[in-house]
């Protein structure tokens, strides 16, 4: 029974989001902290070092952590204000059960009673309908220890094949492309390799807002003489002063990079020696891109031909370079091809595996990298092993003390899990660190699917919009209430340190999971007494895999300011830069730098396909979605932090004046955007910094402010990433109807400033 117990307003009144601001000891300027804990930010994949000030078991503020080499004290506003999630009035401090008679739709129950109920419902569903009738959703903001434990819990304790994670909405296109081309999925270079790159290509990354610390690296590259090329349908802050701005029409990235490769071949801007000795498949790709003449590329991408030629020349003639991309090219029904098309121009240039010769995706979530390495993904076992590979199954089963044939087979991606819930195949669900009701495309369908669950339990620290559907909510832990490792954007494994204890009945997530295993009478393999003990097993489980953590210890992480994997042994220094001659490689075993038996990288033909839903007469405008700097993902944390909400309180629809004028829309006007799946009414921000055929809405809000009411659930056939970056919509000016109140009129703000 997973319908909402009360109407959303009643739920919000009790459980928030309420805004937490500086109060009590956090404004007491004389308050001396009891201790200062060096750790990392809880939000994005940059994983900036930060010192948390702690007093009376509360995080009361921060101090810059100048000694951490990646960010040297720098932080974005989310990092500065992150401490306000502690001591929050919305914090869940007891277990809850669905109770339509309670004011907020939930009533508190003893923790042990809640665990027993979860276990009995799992038992009931699985004994009636089989083990695969219960599924698990997990997340890439968890530490690697927890992510590892979730994969093991699903396969060993629940024996279900249905586990997947919210990294499916994040880096999977890049991951799949990296595996196809390099045999390994990790950013190939440390960020210092940006600093002296002659050309920095930023494709589909709103760097300044989504990975702000990277900005300083890019600006420094420019000071050192580098040129910056930005590919984006919007002039984001990183694009504002770009040497070359390529305003690509959303969904046409493959065409652009194929067009650049065409010009590289035509002008012989190729590293023949590298292509010959270290790659496979160039000829087929060269033949494929013959059709991508500059004229055709310009027509399809909507970018001026002269700019395409200039980009190809800058890229083609450079001695060093760093190509980075992010969700802008990855969130597509052809996201893998988009990434492969960028890798093709990297391989053709031969600029990889050396200082300042670099390629990588800018991961989004805090453990976006580590969370996709150790087995919470539908088809994966720890150490980047494949759950369908008999040798891999045998090794991991041995570590887990089970027989290989007991391990389930590969499951399906998280959106397909929603479809299986809708179809009645999955009847029970446990979710942690995931807010699919806000973050998955076509919200309406996701809500209907959740409502069909016979039993739904959520582990969370705030009552997220998804948790509002739960039968039982188990109070988990905030980032600062536990320790463990994460792997940040560069591939550097770092350590999150515990600053405070969880409040009330709240428990560290791994304890909650183990309590469920015990209540199920299946405690074998779930009796860890600390994250360190989990990590020690993870190290062994990853040993010999591509993502080999065996040589990484908490002590080494502290001593080295992080250790880059692969790190196969105690005496191995770690691998800051992949693909260097002679570097450790368990697949090629000396045959070459790339992770295939022959040691060679793969060119892959990247064929152009238009977006799944292209514009037409009925829906003539392209919608693209993304983030703003002051909010993070589905906003479960950041929509509860007062100063971050003040900075950008409500989603706006960004629209070019040409399109706005056609519909009589002026700055600040209520504007309705409608797709085949839903509609949304927001204030317009009329700006010339976006393509006139495209509008932009940030996606951090739920309900009637959710951009994902409009987006399409089309997915990449390989990575299964949803196409958040393109769907077809129409827009109109919304006229106020007498007596009706448009959404969001309370808390008036000056629209379009983005400034508080």
């Amino acid at each position, binding site marked *: 029974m997973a319908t909402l117990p009360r109407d959303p307003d009643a739920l919000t009144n009790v459980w928030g989001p309420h805004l937490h601001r*500086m109060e009590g000891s956090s*404004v*007491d*300027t004389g308050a001396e902290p009891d201790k200062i804990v060096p750790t990392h930010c809880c939000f994005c994949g940059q994983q900036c070092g930060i010192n948390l000030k702690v007093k009376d078991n509360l995080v009361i503020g*921060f101090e*810059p952590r*100048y000694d951490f080499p990646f960010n040297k*004290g*720098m*932080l*974005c*506003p989310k*990092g*500065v*204000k992150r401490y306000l999630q502690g001591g929050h009035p919305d914090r869940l401090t007891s277990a809850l059960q669905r109770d339509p008679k309670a004011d907020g739709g939930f009533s508190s129950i003893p923790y042990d009673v809640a665990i027993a109920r979860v276990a009995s419902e799992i038992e009931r569903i699985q004994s009636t309908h089989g083990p695969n009738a219960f599924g698990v959703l997990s997340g890439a903001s968890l530490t690697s220890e927890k992510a590892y434990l979730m994969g093991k819990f699903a396969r060993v304790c629940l024996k279900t094949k249905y586990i997947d994670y919210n990294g499916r909405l994040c880096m999977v296109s890049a991951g799949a492309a990296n595996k196809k081309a390099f045999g390994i999925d990790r950013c190939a270079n440390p960020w210092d390799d940006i600093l002296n790159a002659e050309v920095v290509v930023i494709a589909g990354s709103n760097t*300044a*807002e989504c990975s*702000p610390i990277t*900005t*300083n690296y890019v*600006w*420094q590259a*420019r*000071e050192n003489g580098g040129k910056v090329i930005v590919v984006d349908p919007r*002039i984001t*802050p990183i*694009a*504002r*002063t*770009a040497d070359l*701005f*390529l*305003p690509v029409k959303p969904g046409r990235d493959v065409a652009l990079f194929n067009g650049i490769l065409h010009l590289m071949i035509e002008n012989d801007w190729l590293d023949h020696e590298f292509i010959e000795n270290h790659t496979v498949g160039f000829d087929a790709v060269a033949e494929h891109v013959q059709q991508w003449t500059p004229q055709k590329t*310009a*027509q*399809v*991408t*909507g*970018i*001026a031909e002269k700019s395409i030629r200039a980009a190809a020349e800058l890229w083609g003639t450079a001695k060093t370079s760093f190509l980075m991309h992010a969700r802008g090219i990855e969130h597509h029904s052809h996201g893998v091809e988009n990434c492969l098309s960028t890798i093709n121009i990297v391989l053709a240039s031969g600029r990889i595996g050396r200082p300042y010769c670099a390629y990588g995706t800018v991961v989004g979530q805090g453990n976006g990298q580590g969370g996709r390495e150790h087995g919470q993904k539908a088809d994966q076992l720890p150490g980047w092993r494949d759950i369908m590979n008999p040798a891999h199954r045998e090794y991991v089963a041995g570590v887990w003390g089970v027989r290989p044939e007991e391990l389930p087979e590969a499951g399906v991606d998280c959106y397909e899990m929603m479809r299986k819930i809708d179809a009645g195949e999955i009847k029970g669900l446990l979710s942690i660190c995931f807010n699919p009701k806000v973050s998955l495309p076509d919200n309406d369908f996701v809500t209907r699917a959740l409502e069909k669950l016979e039993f739904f339990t959520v582990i969370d620290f705030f009552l997220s919009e998804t948790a509002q559907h739960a039968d039982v909510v188990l109070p988990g832990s905030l980032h600062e209430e536990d320790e463990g490792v994460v792997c940040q954007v560069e591939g550097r494994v770092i350590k999150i340190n515990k600053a405070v204890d969880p409040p009330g009945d709240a428990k560290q997530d791994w304890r909650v999971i183990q309590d469920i295993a015990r209540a199920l009478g299946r405690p074998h393999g779930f009796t860890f007494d600390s994250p360190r003990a989990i990590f020690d097993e993870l190290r062994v489980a990853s040993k010999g895999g591509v993502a080999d953590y065996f040589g990484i210890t908490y002590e080494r992480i502290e001593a080295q300011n992080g250790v880059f994997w692969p790190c196969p042994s105690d005496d191995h220094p770690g691998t800051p830069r992949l693909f260097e001659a002679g570097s450790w490689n368990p697949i090629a075993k000396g045959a070459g730098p790339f992770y295939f038996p022959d040691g060679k990288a793969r060119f892959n033909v990247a064929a152009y396909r238009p977006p799944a839903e292209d*514009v037409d007469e009925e829906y*003539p405008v392209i919608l693209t979605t993304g983030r703003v*700097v*002051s909010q993070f993902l589905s906003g479960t944390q950041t929509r509860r932090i007062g100063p971050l909400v003040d*900075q950008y309180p409500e989603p706006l629809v960004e629209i070019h004046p*040409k*399109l706005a004028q*056609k519909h009589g829309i002026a*700055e600040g006007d209520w504007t309705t955007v409608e797709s085949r799946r839903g509609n949304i009414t927001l204030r317009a*921000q009329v*700006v*010339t*910094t976006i*393509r*006139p*055929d495209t509008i932009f809405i940030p996606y951090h809000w739920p309900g009637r402010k959710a951009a994902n009411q409009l987006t399409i659930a089309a997915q990449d056939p390989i990575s299964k990433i949803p196409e958040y970056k393109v769907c077809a919509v129409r827009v109109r000016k919304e006229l106020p109807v007498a007596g009706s109140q448009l959404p969001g009129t309370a808390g008036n703000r000056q629209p*379009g*400033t*983005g*400034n508080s």
Partner: protein
Amino acid sequence: MMEFFLDPNRCIGCQSCVAACSECDTHRGHSMIHLQYVERPISVQTVPVVCMHCDSPTCAEVCPADAIKRTGDGVVQTARKPRCIACNNCVLACPFGVPKMQTELSLMMKCDMCYDRTSVGLKPMCASVCPSGALYFGTREEIEQLRPRSEPINTFQFGRQTITTKVHMMVPRDAGVQHVDVLSAMNEDPVARMDVFDEIDA
């Protein structure tokens, strides 16, 4: 000697400086930084404004209560609470628009370059956190080595008033105007433009 350098060319408008300023222990809850879009309809350019710490501070010169003091090392401080009469003269007179009147406190407050931090060898809060390097605190040698494309200036002309400041502004050595525009970078081909503009211009 550590100095403060403002480099608006690098600013990304993230407001990290604004957020961090309000975390400073001496004025927690109040940010002393102004961060604004120059003209958002046509550009994402933003400009952070901190106190420039003038050698002859106009704010102090116009203060009828003699409440604004400049330290020996050139830091212009927030008004002295016992003296400030909240008259707003300084707010109106400052050529950079820095002082803020905190009406609930009847006190003018402004950036004091994190005197509590800098006096013990720490960087100011804003220049610590700024993720783009638009606010930078370091030596002149460091900034010259790190930012060869720009040069620091500290003389400003407002009408007939010439002002020299302790804080430096980084300005491009090559003063060419950089302006990126979507339309000028789009494909000119009429076939490709058709789906973009015919619909819209109709």
